[in-house]
Structure formats: C-alpha cells, structure tokens
C-alpha cells in the first residue's frame, strides 16, 4: 500500500478529493447544504455530528455514489489526472465501509469481495479473492478466526464488520488511497476496535487517507489529525484534532453533555428495585425496576441468551394484548425494521393489539400514539407517514425504541440498541431508560460499549456462551468487566 506521493513532500498538498459548495437536496430536505472540504494523503479526518447531520450523505458524495445537486467534487488520481464522477472516484482508490452492514449474507467472505472488486473475474477469481481478504484480515485483525470460505450469514455481527473493514483496505486493481469508515467500531468490542485504530494510524503514516466517522469521541481523538464537525448539512467547525477537547467538541455539535449522576444512583436504585421477575437457565436474573447489563466481548453468547429469553416469553396469542417482554433490536435490518412500511406503522407494531376495536385498528388512536412518541423521543421527520427508510440510521433506532417502550411490557430486552446513535440521543435514551425503570420496568441490556454497561444496576459478563461474572454496585467498572471477559484460568469452567 505504498504510494507514489511521499508524505510530507510537496505533492502531498495536492488533495485526493476536493468538495466545493456541495449541496444535496432530497425534495425539501437539505441533506447537504454547501459543504467544502479537502482530503490530502496522510490525513485522517474525523467526521462527527448527530444523527441526520449529513455525515452519511457527505460520504456518499465523496465516494461518487451521489451526484451533488449543486457544487462540485474533484478527484486527483495517483498520476496527477483530475476528474469528477463515480468512475474517477473508483480510479482514485476511494473505498467505503458503511455503517449499515452491506455484505450479502448468503455468500461467502471471498465472494462478497467480488462486489466492490470488479477486477475479480475469470478462472480462479475465488482464489485471488481469498488471498486478498485473508491478507487484509491478518494485517488489520491478527488472531481473527475468519476463513475466506465461511458464509457471511454464519458470522457474528462483529466478524461481519471486520470483513467489511478488511475489504475496504484490501489490495485490489486500484490500491486503496482513501478509506471511508462509517461507524466502523459500533459492533466491535474494545480489543478489536483497538486493532483497527492502530491499523488506521499505520495506513495514514504510509501516505493513505482515512475519513473516520464515529460517535465514540475517544476513538476520534485517538486517530484523527483533523476533526470536521457537521450540523444540519453544513460543516460548522474544522480544526486540527489537538485544538479540540472532548467538551469543546460536544459543545460544537450542539448538545450539552450532561454530568453523570453516579453518586445518586445507588440510593435511587435501592428504592426502585423490587422482587425478582426473571431467572433464566444461564443464570441471568433480574428484579422489578432493575437495569441489568450483559457485557463481555462481542459474540460470546449475550445476544443468543437474550433471544432465547425473549422467545420463551412471547409469541403466544395470550401475550399479544399484554406482552410480557418487548424487544429493541440493534441489528435493525435483520431484527427490527419493516422496510415497506411508514414510520408510524413501524412504531406502533408492538402496542397495536391494544388499539383495536372489533378486530380493526382504530387509526385515530394509532396516530395519537405515534404523535406522542415522535414528541417524546424526538424523531426527526415532518410526517410520520413517510417511509421508515427515509430516516437516518439513528432515527430509525429511535422508532424501534418507541416501538418497545410504547407497549405495556414490564420487561424490555435490548440487543445492543445504541449502534450508530449519536451522543446526544444516547443521553436522552439513557434518561428514558432510567425513567422507565423508575416506573417499575425491568431492562435487560446487552451492549458492546463499556460506558453503557456501567450505567446498569447489575452486570453479567459473558464468556464463551456462559456467565463468567456477576457485578453489582461499585464493582461495575471497566477493569472488572475486562478482567471477567478475558479471564483464562482460575474459574475451572
């Protein structure tokens, strides 16, 4: 992945991509409202902003997938030629790794590489593909356990994300010169995420460029040389990373960070928590009003434990009107979204049986429920009749939250629900979870992010499909969780 342009040489001033005054309008929505930016070799640009700020649209303009309504995008190839359009974007070596995982689950890892790598044709292309993807995986994620011949549908969410990232960096007809990573670590656990960040730094040191989009500000500070803050389709701040502090960054995004109410929670939770409401065969227990966290490395059986529990307490006709459990999906495409439906229909699905008279849905009641939750949870749309897929990822997630919370279920199961959700929305969601818990709801919350797990009253750490530790109170901290996730001996499993 060595490049002709030496980092620091005069040529490195020639930007790979230059946007000037790029606008993208979808009907009345200004997804991008005059963005100008340049990305040069060796740079790692952190792109941050809330859900719906225009980050994904900006990415799609940069990689040539969207043609801006007005303004221009210019690419400079390795040999110095300048041009515009999707073909030039590809020739320029721009690769994208998307937030919504975009692999075909029915194909193998190497077959999936064929989609972006169009030069993989003719006899024996699978072998070439297998070589490319395994070299990239080995380089970025040493100790990964992914074989090129595995079917993607059999991989865990984290492994799929690793494959997608590796495909972005893999060698090909045109070497990767600018890799766009959109929420690359959202399903990765801390150790794997660290490997990725190291690779990004290596890649940039060798003259590559990266656009790094993440809601985890710590990661952005770790890799970015420059940070661009987006809001309402514009770039509102662009400075070297060292000129920002986490606080100034959050202020720039327009959300006021809330102080963690750590001290009060112990007292509060003592009053809140009631008797035991569930106990599963794995040993998972929860009491009324308790927020129970499931932690550990990604793919160690947490999601399966949640799914088993959910399935055992739902699905019967008796549980339709008075559900015992409600589910918030993290893998939206697979577990949550009804793609043909409006936002409203998606939102009301779980609670709908209670809005029925003589078997028919009372549409006034349905609309009222939708309007209430749009208000409460802040779904960014002017009309709930719009299709769910017209929303940004984070807003779709809010709809799924509303779907579960609008029901009367006393237990809410959440399968890594904050994937790709911005800091401000997360704070609102934490608040809402605490408030609902205060009213006696029990939450089972699997998360790949340690700071989320630390919000819980009790935490079960999973390893190899079993519970390896149960933490409560002040024992819930990153060290203990990591220790229980990695513990190798001593518990005589």
């Amino acid at each position, binding site marked *: 992945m060595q490049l002709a342009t030496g980092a620091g040489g005069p040529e490195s001033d020639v930007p790979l991509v230059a946007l000037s005054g790029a606008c993208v309008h979808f009907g009345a929505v200004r997804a991008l409202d005059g963005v100008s930016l340049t990305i040069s070799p060796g740079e790692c640009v952190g792109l941050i902003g809330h859900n719906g700020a225009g980050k994904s649209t900006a990415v799609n303009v940069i990689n040539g997938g969207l043609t801006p309504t007005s303004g221009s995008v210019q690419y400079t190839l390795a040999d110095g030629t300048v041009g515009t359009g999707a073909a030039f974007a590809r020739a320029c070596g721009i690769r994208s790794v998307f937030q919504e995982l975009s692999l075909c689950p029915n194909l193998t890892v190497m077959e999936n590489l064929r989609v972006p790598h169009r030069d993989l044709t003719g006899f024996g292309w699978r072998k070439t593909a297998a070589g490319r993807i395994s070299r990239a995986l080995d380089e970025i994620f040493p100790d990964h356990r992914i074989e090129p011949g595995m079917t993607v549908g059999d991989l865990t969410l984290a492994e799929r994300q690793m494959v997608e990232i590796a495909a972005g960096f893999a060698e090909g007809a045109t070497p990767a010169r600018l890799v766009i990573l959109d929420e690359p670590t959202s399903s990765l656990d801390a150790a794997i995420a660290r490997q990725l960040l190291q690779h990004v730094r290596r890649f940039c040191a060798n003259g590559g460029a990266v656009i790094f989009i993440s809601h985890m500000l710590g990661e952005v500070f770790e890799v970015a040389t420059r940070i661009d803050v987006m809001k309402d389709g514009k770039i509102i701040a662009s400075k070297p990373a060292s000129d920002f502090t986490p606080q100034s960054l959050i202020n720039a995004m327009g959300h006021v960070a809330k102080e963690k109410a750590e001290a009060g929670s112990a007292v509060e939770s003592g009053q809140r928590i009631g008797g035991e409401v569930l106990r599963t065969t794995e040993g998972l227990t929860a009491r009324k009003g308790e927020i129970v966290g499931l932690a550990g490395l990604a793919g160690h059986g947490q999601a399966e434990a949640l799914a088993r529990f959910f399935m055992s307490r*739902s699905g019967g*006709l008796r549980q339709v009107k008075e559900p015992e459990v409600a589910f918030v999906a993290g893998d939206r495409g*697979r577990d949550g979204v*009804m793609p*043909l*439906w409006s936002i409203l229909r998606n939102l009301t699905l779980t609670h*709908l*049986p209670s809005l029925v008279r003589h078997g028919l*849905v009372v549409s006034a009641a349905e609309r009222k429920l939708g309007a209430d939750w749009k208000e409460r949870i802040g779904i960014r749309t002017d009309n709930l009749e719009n299709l769910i897929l017209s929303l940004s990822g984070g807003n779709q997630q809010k709809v799924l939250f509303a779907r579960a919370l609008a*029901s009367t279920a006393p237990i809410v199961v959440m399968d890594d629900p904050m994937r790709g959700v911005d800091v401000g929305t997360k704070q609102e969601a934490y608040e809402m979870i605490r408030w609902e818990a205060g009213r006696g709801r029990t939450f089972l919350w699997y998360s790949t992010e340690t700071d989320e797990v630390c919000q819980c009253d009790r935490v079960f750490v999973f390893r190899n499909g079993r519970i390896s530790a149960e933490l409560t109170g002040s024992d819930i901290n990153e060290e203990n969780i990591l220790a229980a996730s990695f513990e190798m001996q001593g518990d005589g499993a």
Partner: protein
Amino acid sequence: MASSRLSLLLAILRRPWFWAFAASTIAFFATLTLSEGRGGGELLSAALTFASFSAIVGIGQMFVITLGPGNVDLSIPATMTLAGTLSLKFMDGQTALILPGLGNALAVGIAAGAFNYLLIRLLRIPPIIATLSASFLYQSLAIWWNRGLRIKPPEALADFATGSTGGIPNLTIIGILIAVVSWVLLERSIFGRWVSAFGQNTRAARLSGVPVEAVRAATYISSAVLASLTGYLLASFSGGAALNMGTEYLLISIAVVVIGGSSIAGGNSNVPGIWGGALLMFLVVSMLNSYGFGAGVRLIMTGAIIIAIVAAASGKGRSV
C-alpha cells in the same frame, strides 16, 4: 382545479391494480369490436361469473403469498375438487341439505388448511413442497370417495349458482362480498397488519410480539376454506363435480395475484387487483377465441399479455 385533477389521475395511475383493470377494459372492447357491439351484456355477465371463481381462490392465494418468499398454496385445486365432490355426494341432490352441504365443504377446507399448516410447522417442510404433496393426498381422497359417480347438485342450488339478482350474477355478488371483507381485513384489521409484517421480515415481526405462528395458520386455513367454497360453488354451477375441476385454478390463483399488482416478494398486497386480474384472465382468452386463434397461439398470447401487464405495472414506481 386542473392540477388537483391531474394529481388524482396520477394517483390512480400509480395504483398497482390500475393496469389489470385497464387491460381488462381493452380486452373487453377489442372483443366487442369484432362482433360490432353485439353481445356485450352476455360477455360481461360471463366474465363476471367466471372471474368470481378465480377471484375467490385468488384472494386466498394472495394472503398466502403476502407471507413472503416461499409461501404459496399449491393444494388449491385438490382442495376444490375434494370439497366439491364430498359436498355434492353428501347433499345427494336434496334441497334440504344445501346448507349442511356448504358446511361440509367448509369443514373440508378447514381440515385441509390445518393439515397444510401442520406439515409446514411440525415437519418443517417448505410450504411449496408441503402443499404440493398434500394436494396428492386430497386428490386421491376425492377419487377414492367419488368412485366415478357424477351426482347432480340440488336443483335450488344449481339455480342459485347460475342465476342472477338485479342483473348481477349471484356468484359475482358473493365474490365481491368476499373481496370487500378481505380488503377491510387486509387494510384495516390487526390481522392484515400482521400478515404484512410477516411478509416483510418474519424475524422482526416475531421480535415485535406478532404471534407469527397463529398468523401463518390462519392464512393457510383461510386459503383452503376459500378454495373449498369455490369448489362447492363451481360444482353447483357446472351441474356436478369432476375430478379435474380444479386443475386450471392452480396457475390462475397465482396469476391473478401477480397481475393484480401484489408483490411476489411478500408484505405488500392489494385486493382490487385480484378482481382486475380475474377479469383479465377470462377476457383475454375470450378475446383470442373470438379472433379465431388456435389453442397454441392462445396460450402464447396469454403468456405474453401477462408478462406485458406485470412489466407495465412494475415500471410505475413500484419496487420489488
């Protein structure tokens, strides 16, 4: 004013069922041109009568297809035959047994639908295979029971099936009533919402609290019940049941769903299109007949016309 009319027109054009009705109208007038306008009433009446059979089985098939990829009821013809033969034998031409005979036919439908569902659920057989193999059972059962007898329906029932009320064939009235009820069920009821959710993403539907197994059972049973009702009516209409009476309804039941603009991928269906498709299937054949085409050309033309309609409808902003 003009613009609101235009937008109304555009809205109608975008309805997935528009093309089926448009093509039916064209076929109707193309047939009439040949006869210089004579016999329009008879043609319309025949179309409405025969389309009723296709529409009723088509509606049952539509609910099944809405459940998503792989869901299709191939046992419709055999269920029709079984219900027709059993109920006619049961009534044995006695007027007093007309309603019990109807009950008999519907019971056959419930049993067949439940059996289909149990094959799919308990033995985890893909619906296509399950309903196909079940249909051999039903067909054999019909042969065994029937033993080549040809029993006439009770006279009052035959009169009803071939008669009309206020100029509209009785069968058409039944077909439209069923369509209206199904339309309300699909668009307004919780069941319709669940069927659509099932077809879009079964796993997500299950995780959202939809009782997916109950939905699937109800769907397969209602398809079989509608098929058995059609079998009962068709046998009464044509003066007796025959062992091959259902054969052509296998393809027709699927074709009317597709021509009507329902999505083959599931989750998105509409009822008016079923009637449009049912009328079209009859009118195209009678148009080609009256133009004097032979059987081979007729089949080729029918296929080509169906492809053209589906292509035209899917080109109008309808995804999948």
